[in-house]
């Protein structure tokens, strides 16, 4: 085993564990921010400032009984949460989160902080996103319950509709970067204009960024687009019939997807690990700060905006967001062609 291979394996394990932790952390963060916005306390009893609350939740989930409806399709009912969770973990593999490093000279050649540097990384993200739809569709269908089926259909229709705007918003950045590799896109955003403004894509693609964020919220099924979990009408949507750890897997997938979308938005629009004051090797701190800011924005949106009506959601996605994304792409293409942005 070469040191590089060991480092690569260690990095993979590290990302895996950090994703698990980020889901637990997000649960705590979400509850605390929600409490802040609603002038409540939030969890405060378990551990100092309620910090151990996620652990208590996980233990509770583990000891719950695993229920399965009698009329459910056994194999698919078991498979659906596995698909969701696997897709969520797999998507982060192509997201770079730090500059190349030798780990204080331990390695001969530098290693990029990224599990897999694929040259079509952005397309891989899409492929995995399209696979994660199956987890939700199958969960809805195999439960053999009307709430599950409706929730599954709604959320997959929503994900498929907003995937288009999501992709077109991305395409603008790809035109600017002239590459499908996420690390190339980040590298292009190093430095500043006029020694003041960082060369982030968000300044060249403000509309693309807004479209991307909205579509990202819809893609992760979060409020104000949380139709799969429209509890007033659908109980809990596609995971109504799930309990214990198979429910936990859906939960995990949802929060990891949020982290992934935030990380991708950081890489594409906010300059990834590039930022002032810190040396390149400490760039991952900037990365964490930016991802945290986007996640805070997500939580903020959830506890501020009411849920859309379903037809409004579809009309907004197809009649407003998609045309804006298309026009943005055309203008960007023209800009690249004639002005060489």
């Amino acid at each position, binding site marked *: 085993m070469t040191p590089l291979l060991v480092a690569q394996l260690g990095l993979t394990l590290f990302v895996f564990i950090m994703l698990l932790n980020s889901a637990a952390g997000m649960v705590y963060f979400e509850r605390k921010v929600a409490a802040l916005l609603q002038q409540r306390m939030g969890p405060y009893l378990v551990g100092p400032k309620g910090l151990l609350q996620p652990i208590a939740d996980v233990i509770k989930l583990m000891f719950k009984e695993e229920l399965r409806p009698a009329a459910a*399709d056994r194999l*698919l009912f078991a498979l659906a949460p596995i698909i969701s969770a696997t897709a969520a973990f797999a998507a982060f593999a192509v997201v770079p989160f730090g500059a190349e490093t030798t780990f204080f000279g331990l390695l001969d050649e530098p290693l990029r902080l990224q599990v897999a540097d*694929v*040259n*079509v990384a952005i*397309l*891989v993200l*899409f*492929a995995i996103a*399209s*696979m994660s*739809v*199956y987890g939700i*569709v*199958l969960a809805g*269908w195999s439960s053999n319950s009307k709430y599950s*089926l409706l929730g599954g*259909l709604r959320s*997959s229709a929503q994900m*498929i509709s907003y995937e288009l705007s999501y992709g077109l918003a991305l395409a603008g950045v790809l035109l600017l970067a002239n590459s*499908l590799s996420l690390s190339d896109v980040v590298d292009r955003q190093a430095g500043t204009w006029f020694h003041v403004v960082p060369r982030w894509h968000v300044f060249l693609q403000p509309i693309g960024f807004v479209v991307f964020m909205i579509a990202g919220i819809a893609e992760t099924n979060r409020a104000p687009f949380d139709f799969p979990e429209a509890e007033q009408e659908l109980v809990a949507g596609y995971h109504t019939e799930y309990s214990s750890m198979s429910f936990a897997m859906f939960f995990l997938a949802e929060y990891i997807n949020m982290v992934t979308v935030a990380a991708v938005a950081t890489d594409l629009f906010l300059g990834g690990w590039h930022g002032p004051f810190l040396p390149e090797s400490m760039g991952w701190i900037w990365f964490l700060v930016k991802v945290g800011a986007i996640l805070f924005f997500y939580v903020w949106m959830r506890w501020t905006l009411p849920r859309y009506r379903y037809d409004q959601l579809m009309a907004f996605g197809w009649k407003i967001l998609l045309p804006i994304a298309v026009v943005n792409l055309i203008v960007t293409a023209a800009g690249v062609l004639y002005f060489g942005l």
Partner: protein
Amino acid sequence: MTIDVIPFYLFGAVAVVASLLVIAQRSPIYSVLLLIASFGALSGLYVLLDAPFVAVIQIIVYAGAIMVLFLFVVMLLNAPHEETEEDLAREAGSRPRSASSGLKVFGVVLAALFVVELGWALTRRGGGAFPGRPVTSVAAIGLSLFTDYAFAFEVTSVLILVAMVGAVVLAHREPAGGNAHWGEGGSQGGPPE
């Protein structure tokens, strides 16, 4: 045998077995899922062939977009199992297919085939099948598609449009009155009376 061959046989075996099972078992929803597995294995083969772009597109377009639609149709029709031959025979006796719908299907298929043939014929004339340009990089694929194969590309889009119109024609049920216009006539939607 080198170690590189192992993933090839693995993906190949998965593709063949999954494809066989698609037609060998009766539950339509499992057929769809097995077809997705087969597409996934094919995509693995593309990776081995050093064509990551094609591999990922295979997943996005076929395993993702198209199969989700298949799954929707199967789920919403809620077809539990494929009908046995006796069922089909009984049904054929009780409800004959109308000749005109068969004619429509045939017409649409014929038109589609004609457009494809036309596309191929006109493309073949200039350049060979693959004029020796490497098609592994995204830029190279884009260039080939919009220069050498521009006509075939445009024709394919027309073909898809034809298929879409055909689907609408086939799915649209004539209102009971016969020669009524679209959207008019009783149960076909429109404002409630």
